[in-house]
C-alpha cells in the first residue's frame, strides 16, 4: 500500500476525508466538499525526504477516539516521524466568558461546572475564591474543610480517570479505564449525595458551601478514602512496572524545565519536569497550610514521569483527606453576612487561583459595581499546557503524539471555553 492511500484511508476513517459528493443513491443533495485538498504533500525544509516532497499531512480529529474530545492536530509526517504539529482548537467554544458577563455573579457558578467537566468542584472553588476576594467575604471554618475535602476528592477522580484514558490511548482497551471508572462511581456517588448531582455539582457559594454534609456522608467518605490506597496499589501493580507501559512512555515527550516555565505550564506537567511548584504550597489558599503533605516532583519530564506524578499525587491527596476528615469542626457552612441575591461587589478587580488537578486555574474578575461582572476571564490550565504540544511531539511518531496528548490531560470544555 502506498503511503498516500494509507493516509487517505486514515483520514477518511477520521471523518476528515472527502465525502463522496453524491450519496449512494445519487439523488441526495450534498454540498460540494471544501475547495482544495484537506491534506497534501508539501515539501518542508530540513530533511532529505522533505526536500523530495515526500511528507504527508494528516489531520487527526476533530472526531478521533484519542483526542479527548473535539480537538484537532494537523500533523506533518516525514515517514513515521512528526516534523510539524499544529493544534487546532475552537470546536467546543461555548462562549463561557461572554455568557457569564451577561449574568449575575451567582449565575456564573453553573457555567464554571461545565468548564472542566471532570473537576466541577475545583472550578467552583476557584471562581468563588475570586468573588470572595473581590467582595471581601469569608467562608466559615466548616465550609473551608468541606471545600478541601471535595477538592481533593475531585483530584482523585480526575487523576484516576486520566490514567485510565492514558492507558486507553496506549491500546490497553478497557481494563485500566474500567478500574478507574469503578472508583469514579464511588466518588460521584459521594458528590451526588452531597450536592445532588453526579458531575455538575454547583456546590460552592461566595461565603461558604450550599449544603452541609451529614455525619453519614463524612463516614462514607472516610470509608471510600480509606479504601482508595488499595485501588492505587492494584493500579500500580498493574501498570507502574509494566514492560509495555515503560517501553511506550519512558523518554517520550520530554519537556525541559526551562521550556515548561517559559510557556507557563503548571500543575502535574510542570512538576514532572522537575519544578516543585504547587499553589497549595507556594501561595496557600483556603486552609491548606494546616495539612501536612508532600509535592511529588519528577526528573525527566517524560510521559512516564507525568503518569507517576499523578499516582503519587493521589496518595498525597488521600493523606490530606484523612487529616481533613479527622479535623473537620461542627458549625455553619454559609456565612450569613454574605449576600447572594442582589449581590453587588465594590468596584475593583480580583484574581482567584488555585491548584486544580490540571494546573493553575484562575478567574480574573473586574467589577464595575453592578450585579454583573464587567470582565470575566478564565485562565484555563489545560489550554496553556497544550500550547507546547508541538515541542514535545517533534521527532516522535504519531502513536507517541497520541499518548503525549493524553499525558497533558486536557478537557476541551476548558481549552476552548
Amino acid at each position, binding site marked *: 500500500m502506498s503511503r498516500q492511500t494509507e493516509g487517505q484511508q486514515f483520514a477518511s476513517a477520521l471523518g476528515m476525508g472527502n465525502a463522496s459528493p453524491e450519496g449512494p443513491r445519487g439523488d441526495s443533495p450534498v454540498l460540494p466538499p471544501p475547495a482544495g485538498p484537506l491534506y497534501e504533500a508539501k515539501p518542508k525544509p530540513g530533511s532529505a525526504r522533505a526536500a523530495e516532497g515526500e511528507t504527508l499531512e494528516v489531520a487527526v480529529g476533530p472526531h478521533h477516539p484519542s483526542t479527548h474530545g473535539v480537538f484537532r492536530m494537523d500533523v506533518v509526517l516525514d515517514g513515521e516521524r512528526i516534523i510539524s504539529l499544529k493544534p487546532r482548537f475552537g470546536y*467546543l467554544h461555548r*462562549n463561557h466568558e461572554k455568557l457569564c458577563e451577561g449574568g449575575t455573579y451567582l449565575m456564573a457558578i453553573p457555567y464554571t461546572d461545565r468548564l472542566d467537566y471532570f473537576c466541577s468542584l475545583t472550578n467552583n472553588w476557584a471562581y468563588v475564591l475570586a468573588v470572595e476576594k473581590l467582595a471581601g467575604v469569608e467562608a466559615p471554618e466548616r465550609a473551608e474543610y468541606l471545600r478541601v475535602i471535595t477538592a481533593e476528592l475531585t483530584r482523585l477522580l480526575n487523576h484516576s480517570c486520566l490514567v485510565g484514558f492514558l492507558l486507553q490511548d496506549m491500546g490497553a482497551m478497557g481494563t485500566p479505564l*474500567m478500574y478507574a471508572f469503578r472508583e469514579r462511581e464511588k466518588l460521584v456517588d459521594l458528590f451526588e449525595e452531597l450536592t445532588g448531582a453526579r458531575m455538575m455539582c454547583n456546590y460552592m457559594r461566595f461565603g461558604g458551601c450550599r449544603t452541609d454534609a451529614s455525619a453519614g456522608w463524612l463516614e462514607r467518605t472516610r470509608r471510600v478514602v480509606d479504601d482508595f490506597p488499595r485501588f492505587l496499589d492494584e493500579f500500580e501493580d498493574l501498570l507502574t512496572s509494566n514492560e509495555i507501559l515503560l517501553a511506550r512512555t519512558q523518554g517520550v515527550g520530554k519537556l525541559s524545565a526551562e521550556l515548561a516555565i517559559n510557556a507557563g505550564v503548571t500543575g502535574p506537567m510542570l512538576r514532572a519536569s522537575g519544578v516543585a511548584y504547587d499553589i497549595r504550597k507556594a501561595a496557600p489558599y483556603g486552609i491548606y497550610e494546616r495539612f501536612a503533605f508532600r509535592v511529588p516532583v519528577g526528573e525527566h519530564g517524560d510521559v512516564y514521569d507525568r503518569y507517576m506524578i499523578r499516582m503519587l499525587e493521589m496518595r498525597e491527596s488521600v493523606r490530606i483527606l484523612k487529616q481533613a476528615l479527622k479535623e473537620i469542626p461542627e458549625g455553619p457552612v454559609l456565612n450569613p453576612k454574605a449576600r447572594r441575591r442582589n449581590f453587588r461587589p465594590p468596584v475593583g478587580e480580583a484574581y482567584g487561583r488555585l491548584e486544580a488537578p490540571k494546573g493553575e486555574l484562575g478567574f480574573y474578575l473586574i467589577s464595575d459595581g453592578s450585579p454583573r461582572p464587567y470582565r470575566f476571564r478564565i485562565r484555563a490550565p489545560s489550554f496553556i499546557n497544550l500550547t507546547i504540544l508541538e515541542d514535545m511531539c517533534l521527532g516522535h511518531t504519531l502513536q507517541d503524539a497520541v499518548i503525549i496528548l493524553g499525558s497533558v490531560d486536557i478537557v476541551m470544555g476548558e481549552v476552548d471555553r
Partner: protein
Amino acid sequence: MVEEGLRNELSRQNIFLTSIQELYNWGRRNSLWPLNFGLACCAIEMIAASMARFDIARFGAEVFRPSPRQADLMIVAGTVTKKMAPMVVRLYNQMPEPKYVIAMGACAISGGPFKRGYNVLKGIDRYIPVDVYIPGCPPRPEALLHGLITLQRKIAGERLTGPERPRHLRELEPSEYPIPAYGPYDLDPPKNTELWHPKPFVRDA
C-alpha cells in the same frame, strides 16, 4: 399474523412462530453499534454508561466503533458548536443505512445552558433527523440506557413494507443531508428546512 394468545400458547409447547420482519428487527435492535463520538461533558456519562456499573453491553450496544462506516447509532453527546456542526453532519452522512441518532443532553437537543451563546448550534435536529431525545445536563447513565431501550422499541415496531415503513426503506427519502458551510455570520444554511419543523409556540391566552 397469528394472534398473541395463540402464539404464547404455542411457545409453551416449544413451537415458536415469527415473521421475517420480527426476526429482522429483533436482530438489529439488539446489536446497535454506537459511534465512539463524544463532544463535551455528556460524553463522560456516555463512557460511564459503557463501563462496569451501568454496562450498556446488557443491551447489545457496547461495541463503540471509532469509524462512522462501522456504526449504526450516533449518540450526539454534548454541545454542538457551529464549528463542529458540519463535521457532525458529515459523520452522519458517512454512516451506512439503517442509522439512528440519539440526541443526548440539553445541548444536543436545543443548545442547553449555552443556548444564548453566539457559537452554539441550537439543536442538532436542525440538520439531521433525531430518533430519541434524552433531556438532562448531563443525563444520568440510566437515562441513556432508557433512551437506548426506547430506540430499541422504536426499531421493534418498524415495518418492512407498506406506507409506514421507516425512512431508510423509502426510496425517495435521502440518506445523506446537506452539510452546512461555515458562513461569514452563521452556518449556511442555518437549518435544513425540509427536516426541521418546530411546532409553533403558542402562548396561553
